[in-house]
């Protein structure tokens, strides 16, 4: 398998508190993978270790075959151009307009002239389902769901091969959330995009995810297609999928 992302025996400790105790998994090109786990199991910390923001205590994280934490800064920055991140609250730059936010990656990492960038920014906004007028607004004027769409447009700006999503549908209404699923699926198929997400949205897990990884007690306790994971006898996993089993044709 052509692994875009691989995690090998990652250990994380904050002082005496052990968060990860040997986490390993790999994600292949074009896969859509979701990481789930109870609150406080270190999902967000793991995500930050993958994108080079928090250094794990031990273990290796590889993106596109490069060891993230052993790479010199230039290599790490080149890697960063190949993936996009959608943060949970969007993390838009509040002093820039929506269009300027989406234009930041173009301005910083490409030499495209301004007259080519403006329509591309418009396209990215259209791709995530926002009207062109949104571009002139400030992030503070947008609803939570719209902020998330703008953040996705920014994450997609440089046509990344790998997309990290942190709770992508949290804060969206169900209709908006399903439109978001559809968008991620179309993009992942069309662009051969690999998607790694942290989510609790069961519809997302059933709808577009190829594989689910379950984190508990600092380790991966289940890793496989949703049906396989659901059949796992861990009590937390059983509780987690309980609602869905009771109403199999819901949502």
């Amino acid at each position: 398998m052509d692994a875009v992302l691989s995690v090998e025996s990652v250990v994380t400790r904050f002082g005496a508190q052990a968060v990860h105790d040997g986490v390993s998994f790999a994600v292949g090109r074009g896969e859509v993978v979701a990481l789930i786990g109870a609150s406080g199991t270190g999902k967000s910390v793991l995500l930050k270790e993958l994108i080079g923001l928090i250094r794990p205590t031990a273990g290796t994280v590889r993106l596109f075959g490069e060891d993230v934490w052993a790479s010199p800064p230039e290599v790490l920055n080149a890697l960063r151009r190949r993936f996009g991140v959608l943060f949970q609250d969007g993390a838009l730059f509040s002093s820039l307009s929506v269009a300027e936010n989406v234009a930041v990656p173009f301005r910083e990492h490409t030499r495209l002239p301004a007259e080519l960038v403006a329509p591309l920014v418009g396209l990215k906004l259209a791709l995530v389902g926002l009207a062109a007028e949104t571009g002139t607004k400030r992030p503070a004027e947008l609803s939570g769901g719209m902020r998330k769409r703008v953040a996705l447009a920014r994450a997609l700006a440089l046509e990344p091969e790998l997309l990290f999503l942190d709770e992508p549908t949290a804060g969206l209404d169900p209709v908006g959330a399903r439109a978001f699923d559809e968008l991620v699926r179309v993009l992942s198929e069309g662009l051969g995009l690999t998607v790694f997400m942290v989510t609790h949205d069961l519809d997302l897990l059933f709808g577009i995810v190829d594989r689910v990884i379950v984190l508990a007690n600092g380790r991966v306790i289940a890793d496989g297609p949703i049906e396989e994971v659901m059949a796992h006898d861990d009590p937390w996993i059983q509780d987690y999928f309980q609602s869905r089993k009771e109403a199999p044709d819901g949502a």
Partner: protein
Amino acid sequence: MAASIDHTEEDGVSVLYLAGSWRLGAVPDIAAALARLRLEGRRHCVLDGSRLGELDTAASFTLLRHLAAAGLARAAIAARGFQPRHERLLELVRSRMDTVSAAPRAPRPGLLARIGRATASIGALLRTHTGFVGLVTLEAIALLRRPRLFRLRETVAQFEAAGLNAIPIVALLTFLIGVVFTYILGMQAQRYGAQIFVVDGVGLAVCRELAPLLAAVIVAGRSGAAFTAQIGSMKVQEEIDAIRTLGLSPIHVLVIPRLLALMAALPLLVFVGSVAGIAGGMLVAAWQLDIPAAVFIDRLHATLPLSALVIGLAKAPVFAAFVAIIACRMGLLVARDARSVGDNTTSTVVQSICWMIVIDAAFAVALQQMGI
């Protein structure tokens, strides 16, 4: 492999062969290649993707936008030979591109318009400041009726931060100003052999003007900026809304404790500043003007009117009230973005210092008229 495009005629139909790696980095080349195509007057064209290596949304969009601009509508373009994923991508871009229009840029207003707008907004700000003073007064009266709601702990904490913690910096700066002032005054007085009158001048200037103004400027920079930034960040995090929803008044919880703490702290700082400034003067007088400390203090006793110190101390609560009201109001006016916190904090310091100079001048004129 670079992106390229070949235009051929097959059975009277234009066929565009897309080849190579059509990715974001190649968009300028693609745009240039498209501009060289002669498609005017064509009513149909076929896109052939059989030689295409890679395709992304930016490149697809550049192509489709150019074709649309050349008058080839969606129905007039046929696609063939694309890999399924490229075809899906092309379809996605095609379905979304109708809503794309370059966002209209707001025209930049002229210099005169900007000056006018800035003036009008300053006027509006000052007008609404008055309203805010009224609101705080009403809330303070409401607090007098229900003293249980007064937040003593918060007030004491603010007094410590704004008053006690500022003592070292106020003492140091007024001491240095006392040194400099005495030195300059002494140089002039020595020419006329009038050294002893330097004591009169230093005592009066430090107690009545220098210590109050300097302490107030330091407080505006330290505590005024802190108040605006604290309250502004709370606004950004929706904490102010949370306070309201809990049935509390942000004026009671945030503004009144800060206002009272600052009004109590600034007279203390002015007193400390007066003592430190005179001490600085005494040092220079002994060293440069040969006036021993005992003579300096004796002369000060004889000539410094108590009214000078009282006037200096009396100005302090007025300065403090202006700083606290402006700082809290600017904090509450913060919009939900990071820049606005910075803008309003700057504005607090500038407004506070301007107001202090204006009030100080008003005090000077009024006291002169009253003959004090």
